[in-house]
């Protein structure tokens, strides 16, 4: 039944939204910004209210006259603000209810969203209370009605039992003190609502709290026009000696008050109380979504190479934004298509969206809208970053090979020089994509620190049978030209932390580590740094003297080589085993550390969960090579390893 309501509601919203898209375009459709518009209207209400308050007299005799004076004596400003105050409040009720309805029918109120939903229900009460309270202040016939009706309604509650209304029907009880109290409440409730609003959106990653400016501008203009054409006016002054008969009525705020005189107060309490309880419990009531996984799933984001968790029912966009991924997005409601990305692995529920934003063909080709799709398994998603890291543009360079050294039988050190006048800014840890003539590319990390200008160092490991590395070893010559794209990747040394650093390098994973350590030493980083470099045998430490030299010259740097397979004739007396196991042996607790892991897919796949299990925070674990545990292709080794190791 409720499912049917959801489905019908979604259908209606999508229909109306697509209609609105014709007029507003899919980026400025107000229906995609109902929450932010409510927020914006709230600011108009607060701003205009502040001005009204300056001129409002909180005395029984003066209140009516002061509002009249403002409305007519100052119609060109105070009057307009009074009208704006009323219409923005009414508009807020409208957009708030639509906002509520949209989250409801799109089933975006369960699981972790209960927090926004429940705070929303409380907000709903506060907004209504503030509005109804506001109508008490001008002390006209409507005010008289509203105070008495409120008292009559609350008098149904046994503790009041008929005493409350006596404050409002006897002229001698309606005094200035009562008025000061009413207007004090009218400031208190909105401020409480504002505080709650901040809480309400607090758990929504990168929540928009204001609509795009063209919407704000048109809406404000429309409200001003309305205020001029139909100014908000007081009704006849309150008169306790005569009964309120027929009055102008605000149906946005007061429908419950109309009901109060059709039903009994007790029935109205039952309705309002029951509806509130139902709303508060809605996130936990059926129909339950098919539970796919309690813990949620893993999401591997490319090209960031970040693994993050996605919660049940959470859009992939929200999950990414929560973890600081710079996913592109605009409407967040399946209208604009800006958040389009490619699903490269796993299963998703594509969600509900406009066909213009994502066509059937695109969907069939594995595209998805990040703001609508939810995960049904561990997934891998690739998006096109609109903003390069740190604003450093990605472009294609032609570089000349200036030097080559065979550091080990299977490791070639290659130095490249850019063309005259060319400069390449990057972060230590980023990589380049060497472009092959056949359109493929191979990734290699910068092995030099960014401050070393002039020459770019790569450490290339031979992958037998590969399309590029055998050529490097057998045919490449000094003077050859290499085309590459750079700088790439979001793997870089985070300098906004004080935590001690552990570098884990496997084989040629040493290249990005070298870049990062040299950068750290160059800028005088004071954090403790520990490098575990894992190779098979001592002779594979192809630049082994370098970390030993860092260790001698810098008290905050330590180097621990780890051999996985030393031969007896190596006479190795140091650490033996897998490199990440050496770390696990040394650190029973990894909390409070940052780990940068560079190496083979297998190494990172084994190390990452083991580190997390030892208390390392997800956001403190960085790698250039991530793969979902469930998804390890055998073949693409040469493509997957920007660190250069495999």
């Amino acid at each position, binding site marked *: 039944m409720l499912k049917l309501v959801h489905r019908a509601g979604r259908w209606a919203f999508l229909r109306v939204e697509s209609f609105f898209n014709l007029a507003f375009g899919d980026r400025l459709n107000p229906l995609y910004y109902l929450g932010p518009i409510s927020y914006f209207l709230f600011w108009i209400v607060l701003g205009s209210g502040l001005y009204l308050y300056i001129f409002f007299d909180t005395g029984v005799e003066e209140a009516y006259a002061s509002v009249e004076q403002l409305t007519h004596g100052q119609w060109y400003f105070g009057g307009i603000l009074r009208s704006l105050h009323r219409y923005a409040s*009414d508009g807020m009720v409208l957009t708030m209810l639509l906002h509520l309805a949209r989250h409801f029918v799109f089933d975006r109120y369960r699981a972790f969203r209960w927090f926004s939903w429940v705070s929303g229900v409380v907000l709903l009460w506060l907004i209504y209370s503030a509005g109804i309270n506001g109508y008490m202040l001008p002390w006209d016939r409507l005010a008289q009605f509203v105070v008495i009706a409120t008292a009559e309604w609350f008098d149904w509650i046994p503790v009041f039992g008929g*005493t409350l209304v006596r404050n409002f029907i006897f002229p001698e009880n309606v005094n200035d003190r009562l008025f000061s109290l009413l207007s004090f409440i009218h400031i208190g409730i909105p401020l409480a609502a504002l505080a709650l609003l901040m809480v309400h959106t607090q758990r929504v990653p990168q929540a928009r709290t204001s609509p795009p400016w063209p919407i704000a501008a048109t809406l404000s203009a429309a*409200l001003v026009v309305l205020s001029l054409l139909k100014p908000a006016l007081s009704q006849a002054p309150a008169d306790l000696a*005569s*009964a309120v008969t027929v009055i102008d009525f605000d149906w946005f705020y007061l429908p419950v008050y109309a009901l109060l005189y059709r039903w009994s107060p007790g029935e109205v309490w039952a309705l309002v109380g029951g509806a509130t309880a139902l709303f508060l419990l809605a996130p936990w009531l059926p129909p339950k979504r098919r539970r796919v996984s309690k813990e949620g799933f893993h999401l591997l984001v490319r090209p960031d190479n970040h693994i993050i968790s996605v919660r049940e029912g959470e859009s992939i966009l929200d999950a990414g934004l929560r973890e600081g991924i710079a996913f592109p997005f605009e409407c967040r409601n399946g209208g604009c298509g800006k958040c389009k990305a490619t699903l490269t692995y796993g299963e998703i529920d594509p969600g509900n969206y406009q066909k213009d934003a994502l066509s059937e063909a695109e969907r069939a080709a594995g595209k998805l809208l990040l703001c609508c799709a939810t995960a049904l398994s561990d997934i891998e998603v690739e998006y096109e970053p609109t903003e390069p890291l740190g604003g450093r543009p990605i472009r294609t360079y032609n570089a000349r090979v200036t030097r080559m050294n065979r550091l080990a039988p299977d490791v070639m050190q290659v130095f490249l020089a850019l063309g005259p006048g060319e400069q390449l800014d990057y972060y230590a840890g980023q990589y380049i994509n060497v472009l092959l003539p056949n359109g493929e590319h191979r990734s290699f990390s910068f092995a030099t620190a960014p401050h070393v200008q002039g020459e770019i160092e790569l450490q290339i490991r031979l992958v037998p049978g590969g399309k590029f590395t055998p050529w490097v070893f057998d045919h490449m010559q000094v003077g050859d030209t290499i085309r590459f794209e750079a700088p790439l990747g979001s793997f870089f040394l985070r300098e906004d932390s004080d935590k001690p650093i552990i570098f884990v390098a496997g084989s040629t994973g040493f290249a990005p580590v070298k870049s990062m350590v040299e950068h750290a030493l160059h800028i005088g980083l004071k954090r403790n740094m520990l490098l575990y470099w894992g190779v098979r045998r001592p002779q594979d430490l192809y630049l082994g003297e370098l970390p030993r030299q860092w260790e001698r010259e810098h008290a905050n740097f330590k180097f621990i080589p780890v051999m996985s397979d030393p031969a007896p004739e190596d006479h190795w007396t140091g650490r033996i085993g897998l490199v990440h196991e050496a770390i696990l042996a040394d650190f029973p607790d990894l909390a409070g550390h940052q780990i940068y892991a560079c190496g083979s897919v297998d190494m990172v796949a084994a190390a990452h969960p083991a580190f997390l299990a030892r208390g390392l925070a997800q956001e403190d674990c960085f790698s250039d090579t991530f793969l979902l545990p469930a998804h390890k292709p055998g073949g693409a080794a040469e493509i997957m390893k920007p660190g250069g190791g495999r």
Partner: protein
Amino acid sequence: MIGVLRFLAQLALYVPLMVILGYFSSAPRFAHLPQDRALMRVSFSHAGERLRECHQRTPEELAKLPPNMRSQLDCPRERSPLKVEVELDGRLLLSLDVPPSGLHHDGAATVYRRIELPTGRHEIAVRMRDRPHGDFNHRATTTLDLPPGGSVLIDFDNARGGFRFRS
């Protein structure tokens, strides 16, 4: 051209929205009390007499009490409920038994009734009994001309001589 069309389309959507806001913020009018009716409210708060009278404790009774509670006079706190009746033009309109408030039934009893009346000239009689036994001990009558939207408020204040009609 597209720009103009867009502008017109947006206008076509904003105008109804503003019409909705402007209209429902004050209309349709709400008839709280139909034009041809008047309103009577009965509202007062009054503490009835004690249900039982105080009595002098006998020495035996006193001896049974803990020493710190041996007061001569025993005054049960419970108050009598109020019996209230209102007559309109000789016909009984309202008959209420109002219990005292409080956990021990020792507080004031509060009455509130809102009754719509036809307009015109009316004779209103109100009476109350605030003690456990006997006849009504507070009474008042009045004759009033109630215009449409007229209002009469029946209050009770012992210090000011009992029932008052305020209109």
